[in-house]
């Protein structure tokens, strides 16, 4: 299975759970419980379905779920009233969502207009004034493309290539003069002022020019070539830091789209003792140059901080050389930020460690350089006052560093932040900085935990396992069971006497194998609740459609059955309930006339009975109209005119192929298929159906299902030298044929009289067209119970013994054969066919039988 398929499998699993939850929630909502949390839950369920659908590109589902979700959103915050109609619309829409999910699962496309009507209703509800376009906003495009590059902030060895490229610095005088000529350029006045007021740090390409003297300083914009340079003035607001955005990271992004040079305005930085870590004291002017730079790309960098900062973007040519030149006058300290993508190293590596090791004093010193260095006359008093209040070491540092012009604005700022908010800021970097106080616990935790959920709080622990894996175990255990039974078969009397220890070992093996098998089967078992839970709604819908009053009682929802059986159960059960509601329960008038309560009851129950699960659908309706059933059966050739079936047989005729009692195909049960579909579905999973009806009092339909599909307890018999197996669960007793009391009906069918009861006889040799050489008196009769109470006597040549077999599907490996339920491989490698007792019993209906 590819990764994508695995995700899809997870998704479809999740969808079916969510759909069940949706059903349950809406049942409660329909019953009047419109709790906010319930509404939130249904919203979330649809939201999750949509989310996953989007991931796999199930567009139809996304579109529908989106509109549905929008409606639910409107409902939960009260913009749309949850009327009965809206609830009905929602319930119907859950089905549509389920259809979309199923289609996606089966790689099918539903028509483009599938669910269009509901969608239109959603849109109308959410946006009554508009023309059906509500909720159709396009998901925002999310295009940030760049390759992973890291940033290295260069502080000393200026980058030669870059400085070459930017070697076009106009003379300061020229720029100043030019600026004077153009002071009234109102468009750029603000920017110019901003730049002019900026206090300082900017790029110097050449350390040699790193001088405080105005004359020798280089200028960012001018240096970059003001005419082809984008200018971004970036002023963070407090919210930017509160949301854990970091200017440093934004600069890193900027450096990816082009070459950057920047200057930081540090004027607002207060004396250290007044410093608040989350206050935005700095602003920056970034000059950006590159072929791919567009305003859009710049905006993308600032996507997450939009509204949390002020940004002014000026395209190339927007800053006049004059304005750029104006900067020169204010510059008295220079530093540089050179970011070169190809030299970038992971930020979590050494730089982080290095940064966190910078001492507070260092920082203060650097800060002094940056913040106070250039505008001596203005800033000096502040600087000295800060000196007075900070430790002398800091003051010394500041003085020492005053001359150090080759500073790095980014590094400085990040250092500053790191130190000022060690708890918060340092946290992400602790991995890389062993010196940081938090590192050891973090590292320890990292070793301890790889991937995990939050510490478990619920008492019942569970893991999710791929069904394939479970089935592999089931299969292996099945084979083990066969091997074990083969070993047991090999034990003849001489061996038993000779190797008593071996025999005991094999007995223990048998027990253990049995235990193992039960345990494995338990893994596959699931409560029938998942199927039952869909039924209340079905009954309510049916009641609405038919105008009847029906209540549904459910018992034994926790009964567990094999997952595969459960999956196959939904359709037959739905059909049976439909049948009960449609044909069983009478209309209110009729019920009153018959002295019954006006509300009919359908009772759905599940219980375990030995190796079987019984699922019973019972109604207190009119019961089966046997006369009509018989008429129809005869009319349609389901039975021969001369046959006179018992009441019970008549009842069970409703499962015969091609039989439908509905005079007109009703909207509900008559969907072109009859109850025969129920029978064939149930038989597919090794089950049986039995109907018992009491005219005027109701009908009871019993599904008998195997606990598991994998292993079957059987009686091994032989017919004409070929092994056959008969499911043990259906065997009542075995009788020697010579002692049995056979008779014949006038029509020639063989009967067996047993304790006064006549039982239909099926000679397997005749039935399967085989030639047996066994003498009649030596043959055996296996008396089986086909379903409920009717019996059939199978005549076989020999009874070999009991054992367990692993069922192999005949249909998958060959094709369907009437009278055969499947195949199995015996311990000695022989193939044995599993006799379909019920199929044989229903013989006359299976005209294709050999």
């Amino acid at each position: 299975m590819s990764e994508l398929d695995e995700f899809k499998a997870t998704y479809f699993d999740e969808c079916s759970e969510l759909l069940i939850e949706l059903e349950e929630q809406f049942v409660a909502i329909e019953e009047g419980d419109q709790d906010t949390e319930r509404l939130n839950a249904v919203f979330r369920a649809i939201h999750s379905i949509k989310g996953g659908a989007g991931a796999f590109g199930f567009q139809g589902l996304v579109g529908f779920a989106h509109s549905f979700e929008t409606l639910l959103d409107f409902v939960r915050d009260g913009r749309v009233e949850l009327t009965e109609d809206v609830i009905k619309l929602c319930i119907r829409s859950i089905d549509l969502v389920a259809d979309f999910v199923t289609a996606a699962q089966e790689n099918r496309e539903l028509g483009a207009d599938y669910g269009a009507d509901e969608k239109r209703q959603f849109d109308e509800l959410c946006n009554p004034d508009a023309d059906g376009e509500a909720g159709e906003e396009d998901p925002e495009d999310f295009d940030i493309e760049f390759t992973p590059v890291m940033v290295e902030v260069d502080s000393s060895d200026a980058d030669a290539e870059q400085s070459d490229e930017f070697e076009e610095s106009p003379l300061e005088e020229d720029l100043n003069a030019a600026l004077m000529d153009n002071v009234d350029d109102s468009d750029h006045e603000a920017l110019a002022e901003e730049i002019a007021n900026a206090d300082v740090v900017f790029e110097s390409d050449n350390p040699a020019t790193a001088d405080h003297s105005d004359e020798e300083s280089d200028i960012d914009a001018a240096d970059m070539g003001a005419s082809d340079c984008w200018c971004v003035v970036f002023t963070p607001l407090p919210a930017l830091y509160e949301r854990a955005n970091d200017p440093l990271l934004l600069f890193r992004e900027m450096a990816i789209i082009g070459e950057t040079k920047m200057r930081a305005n540090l004027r607002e930085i207060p004396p250290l003792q007044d410093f608040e870590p989350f206050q935005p004291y700095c602003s920056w002017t970034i000059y950006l140059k590159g072929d791919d730079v567009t305003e859009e790309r710049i905006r993308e960098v600032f996507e997450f901080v939009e509204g949390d900062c002020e940004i002014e973007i000026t395209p190339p040519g927007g800053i006049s050389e004059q304005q750029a030149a104006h900067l020169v006058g204010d510059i008295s300290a220079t530093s540089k930020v050179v970011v070169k993508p190809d030299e970038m190293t992971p930020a979590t590596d050494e730089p982080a460690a290095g940064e966190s090791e910078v001492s507070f004093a260092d920082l203060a010193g650097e800060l002094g350089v940056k913040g106070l260095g250039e505008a001596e006359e203005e800033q000096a008093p502040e600087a000295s006052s800060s000196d007075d209040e900070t430790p002398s070491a800091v003051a010394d540092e500041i003085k020492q560093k005053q001359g150090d012009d080759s500073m790095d604005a980014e590094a400085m700022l990040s250092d500053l932040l790191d130190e000022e908010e060690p708890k918060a800021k340092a946290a992400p970097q602790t991995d890389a900085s062993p010196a940081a106080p938090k590192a050891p616990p973090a590292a320890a935790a990292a070793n301890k935990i790889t991937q995990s959920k939050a510490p478990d709080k619920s008492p019942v622990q569970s893991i999710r396992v791929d069904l394939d894996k479970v089935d592999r175990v089931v299969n292996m255990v099945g084979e083990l069971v066969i091997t074990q039974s083969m070993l047991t078969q090999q034990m003849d009397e001489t061996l038993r006497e000779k190797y008593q220890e071996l025999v005991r070992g094999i007995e223990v093996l048998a027990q253990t194998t049995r235990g193992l098998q039960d345990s494995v089967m338990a893994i596959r078992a699931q409560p029938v609740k998942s199927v039952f839970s869909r039924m209340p709604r079905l009954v309510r819908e049916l009641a609405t459609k038919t105008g009847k009053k029906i209540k549904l009682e459910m018992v034994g929802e926790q009964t567990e059955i094999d997952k595969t059986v459960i999956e196959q159960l939904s359709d037959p059960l739905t059909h049976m309930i439909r049948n009960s509601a449609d044909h069983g329960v009478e209309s209110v008038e009729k019920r009153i006339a018959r002295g019954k309560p006006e509300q009919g009851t359908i009772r759905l129950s599940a219980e375990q009975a030995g190796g079987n699960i019984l699922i019973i659908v019972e109604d207190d309706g009119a019961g089966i109209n046997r006369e009509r059933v018989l008429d129809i059966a005869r009319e349609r050739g389901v039975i021969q005119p001369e046959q006179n079936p018992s009441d019970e047989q008549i009842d069970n005729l409703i499962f015969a192929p091609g039989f439908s009692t509905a005079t007109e195909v009703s909207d509900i049960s008559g969907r072109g298929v009859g109850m025969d579909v129920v029978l064939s579905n149930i038989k597919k999973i090794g089950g049986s159906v039995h109907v018992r009806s009491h005219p005027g009092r109701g009908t009871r339909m019993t599904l008998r299902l195997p606990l598991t599909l994998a292993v079957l307890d059987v009686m091994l018999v032989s017919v004409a030298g070929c092994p056959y197996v008969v499911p043990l669960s259906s065997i009542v007793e075995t009788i020697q044929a010579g002692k049995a009391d056979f008779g014949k009906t006038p029509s020639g069918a063989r009967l067996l009289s047993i304790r006064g009861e006549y039982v239909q006889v099926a000679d397997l040799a005749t039935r399967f067209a085989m030639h047996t050489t066994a003498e009649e008196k030596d043959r055996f009769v296996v008396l089986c119970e086909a379903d409920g109470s009717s019996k059939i006597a199978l005549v076989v040549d020999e009874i070999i013994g009991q054992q367990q077999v692993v069922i192999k599907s005949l249909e998958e490996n060959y094709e369907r054969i009437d009278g055969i339920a499947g195949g199995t491989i015996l311990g000695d490698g022989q193939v044995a066919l599993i006799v379909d007792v019920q199929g044989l019993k229903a013989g006359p209906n299976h005209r294709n039988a050999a």
Partner: protein
Amino acid sequence: MRVLTVDDSRTILAMLQHTLAGAGYEVLQAENGQEGLDVLQNESVDVVITDINMPIMDGIEFIKNVRASGKHQSLPILILTTETSQDKRDQGRAAGGTGWIVKPFDPDKLLSVIKKVSH
């Protein structure tokens, strides 16, 4: 780098896990905000990716709680949501969300956004 993923959808968690683990991240998972807080209490995490609509504690509350804890003011938190309407995203940001990822996410984009907000 450790990424905490918080989402009530197993599908999304699995896809995040796959993409992130494939890119060398260590992935922690939580199914709702409350579980997310529990993880943060005990583990150090570099980036958080959280869904908005979750039972027990939704993403907005989760982010608020993370920020209010005092311990994680600078922890990048990405809001993972199919919400296309601006108001949900704004709520997430107002609560302290660093950025967002729109579902369905392209793995490359997911990784690039994580890089964009992480140190």
